[in-house]
């Protein structure tokens, strides 16, 4: 068998039980047609040049809602168990009531699952689901739309402020077999509202896991969103993560992606600024070792004038690990006075690590300020010697310098537990 055959059977099974008159089922049918037309992306696609799914998709990966004690153990031993937050915990794409905890939320705020709420909150679902993450030409989004398991549905109404972070935690449990999980999250933050979302990816089990996730995020006028993505899947784990943020005027979004573990991680992070005076931060840090492969594709659409975007991705690579950065800033014809920064900086700790970086600007307006750049280098000898000459051992000195390198990313993280996790990970990977 292969993943494709698994998927085709799953979809046949799904259709046999589905109500064909449901618009949602129709949407999924169309998505499946699109997926079958496109097939899995291959390295012949320009956007997938350095990330090869072939070896993975030729194997069996089964969608399952089976969960095991080990998923619970992974959660309980993580920093998230004790974190002050609303928690939605999904194991292989299905909500775990036992591990989830949502309490004391204000009337009108929704922190729940798509499966349960898509009909009870039909208007929200209809207005936003599938509106931002497009299916046409995007095979992995099409696949997720056709066969999504479940996911978070978050709604913060106008003028509401959710002060506690909302944790969307996905655990891939590959205890019994290779698993395929397809979480789908819909997050809607209405005008003048504010929320903090933390997406987390964990895993357990000796078999392989493939997580194909799609996030759609709508941020209404004057709203504020803190958005963190923390990727910590260990063992043999593969992940494709697509996130589309759609922002109205005067919004601020602070986004940080931390890729700390994972055999192969492909992130697609897209911002679309649909109003003026938007302020967007996209920061990312990847720390890789062994044969890890991390691919960050980002795209920022400056569709309206007077917006600011600040993008910075940093990488620390060890052993034979590889990383890809492909950042595109698209300044539309109308988007005068756009101010856009983009940087990608990498430190290679070994001779065998590889980075492919491609910063891209496409500018159709004529009065804009855009800068981009990329660097790949080693840890500087001079600062290292300076620290050692003060009695600090080499390993500790490297740790200090790597933490300093990661410092501007850490500064954008407003949850102390996550900053501590980052420091701990630098220490562990050295």
């Amino acid at each position: 068998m292969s993943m494709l055959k698994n998927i085709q059977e799953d979809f046949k099974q799904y259709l046999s039980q589905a109500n064909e008159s449901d618009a949602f089922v129709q949407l999924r049918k169309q998505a499946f047609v699109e997926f079958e037309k496109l097939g899995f992306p291959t390295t012949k696609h320009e956007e997938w040049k350095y990330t090869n799914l072939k070896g993975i998709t030729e194997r069996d990966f089964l969608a399952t809602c089976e969960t095991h004690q080990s998923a619970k153990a992974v959660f309980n031993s993580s920093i998230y168990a004790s974190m002050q937050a609303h928690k939605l915990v999904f194991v292989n794409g299905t909500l775990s009531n036992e591990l989830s905890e949502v309490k004391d939320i204000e009337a009108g705020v929704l922190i729940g699952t798509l499966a349960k709420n898509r009909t009870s909150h039909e208007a929200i679902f209809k207005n936003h689901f599938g509106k931002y993450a497009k299916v046409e030409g995007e095979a992995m989004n099409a696949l997720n739309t056709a066969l999504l398991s479940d996911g978070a549905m978050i709604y913060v109404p106008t003028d509401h402020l959710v002060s506690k972070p909302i944790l969307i935690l996905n655990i891939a449990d590959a205890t019994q077999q290779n698993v395929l999980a397809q979480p789908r999250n819909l997050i809607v933050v209405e005008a003048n509202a504010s929320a903090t979302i933390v997406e987390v990816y964990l895993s357990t089990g000796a078999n392989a896991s493939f997580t194909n996730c799609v996030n759609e995020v709508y941020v209404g006028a004057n709203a504020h969103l803190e958005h963190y993505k923390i990727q910590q899947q260990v063992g043999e784990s593969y992940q494709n993560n697509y996130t589309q943020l759609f922002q109205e005027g005067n919004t601020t979004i602070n986004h940080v992606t931390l890729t700390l573990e994972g055999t192969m991680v492909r992130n697609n992070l897209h911002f679309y600024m649909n109003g003026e005076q938007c302020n967007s931060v996209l920061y990312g840090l990847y720390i890789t070792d062994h044969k890890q492969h991390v691919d960050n594709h980002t795209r920022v659409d400056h569709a309206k004038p007077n917006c600011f975007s600040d993008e910075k991705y940093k990488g620390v690579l060890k052993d034979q690990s590889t990383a890809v950065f492909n950042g595109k800033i698209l300044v539309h014809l109308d988007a005068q006075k756009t101010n856009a920064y983009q940087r990608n900086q990498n430190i290679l700790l070994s001779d065998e690590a590889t980075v492919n970086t491609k910063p891209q600007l496409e500018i159709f307006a004529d009065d804009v300020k855009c800068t981009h750049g990329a660097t790949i280098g080693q840890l500087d000898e001079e600062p290292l010697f300076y620290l050692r000459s003060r009695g600090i051992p080499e390993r500790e000195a490297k740790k200090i310098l790597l933490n300093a390198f990661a410092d501007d990313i850490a500064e954008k993280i407003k949850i102390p537990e996550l900053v501590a996790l980052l420091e701990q990970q630098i220490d562990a990977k050295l």
Partner: protein
Amino acid sequence: MLEIKNLQSAIEDKKILNGINLTVNPGEVHAIMGPNGAGKSTLSAVLAGRADYEVTGGEVLFNGKDLLEMSPEDRAREGVFLAFQYPVEIPGVSTTNFLKTAINEKRKYQGLEPLEATHFLKFMREKMELMEMDKSLTSRSLNEGFSGGEKKRNEVFQMAMLEPTLAIMDETDSGLDIDALRLVSNGVNKLRDGKRSFVVITHYQRILDYIVPDFVHVLYKGRIVKSGDASLAKELEAKGYDWIKEEVEATTI
């Protein structure tokens, strides 16, 4: 305390040090002077343990231990301090955290418990007052955006914090105006306690007006060709290095 015996060194096959002999006893201040290219910076680099300098002969004993066998961090933890000619800017590393780590690493090496945060801060405040350091400097990233004078003062402040038994000062006077030089020298003089030793490496006699040495050595072509007391420095200032060069050339022929 420090015994340098017939030390020879080369960089990329080029011989720089050709047999240096020098003994520094506790509490002594030795100045090493010499023209450009004499090997002054190489000597400090070899003593500090820079990897790109190859020692091709001789030995260096520090309190009886083989200094050249030690890693740079072990030399520091044994009590050697190098004040850099060009202190490195390290953005993202706070001076305070850096010093706390350095002091606690040294204490660990000596089998002592780490300093409690309050004790450390009190200790740092005392040393800052002693060195007349501006408070803002320690809250900033290490040397980042510091002026030349601030960087050199920060070196002496670190010296005060780490309390070495031997301080090697590599052209600390270079690039300093007269006020900064006075401040830096005052700092160093406060750390002279009759036990701590100093090796002051310099091209100019100027700094030795403030930090008065017990011995002055002239380094030329990788060897110490002349030694004397503080008056030798004055003589060099007045007459330049040419007469030394001539003397050396005459005796080698």
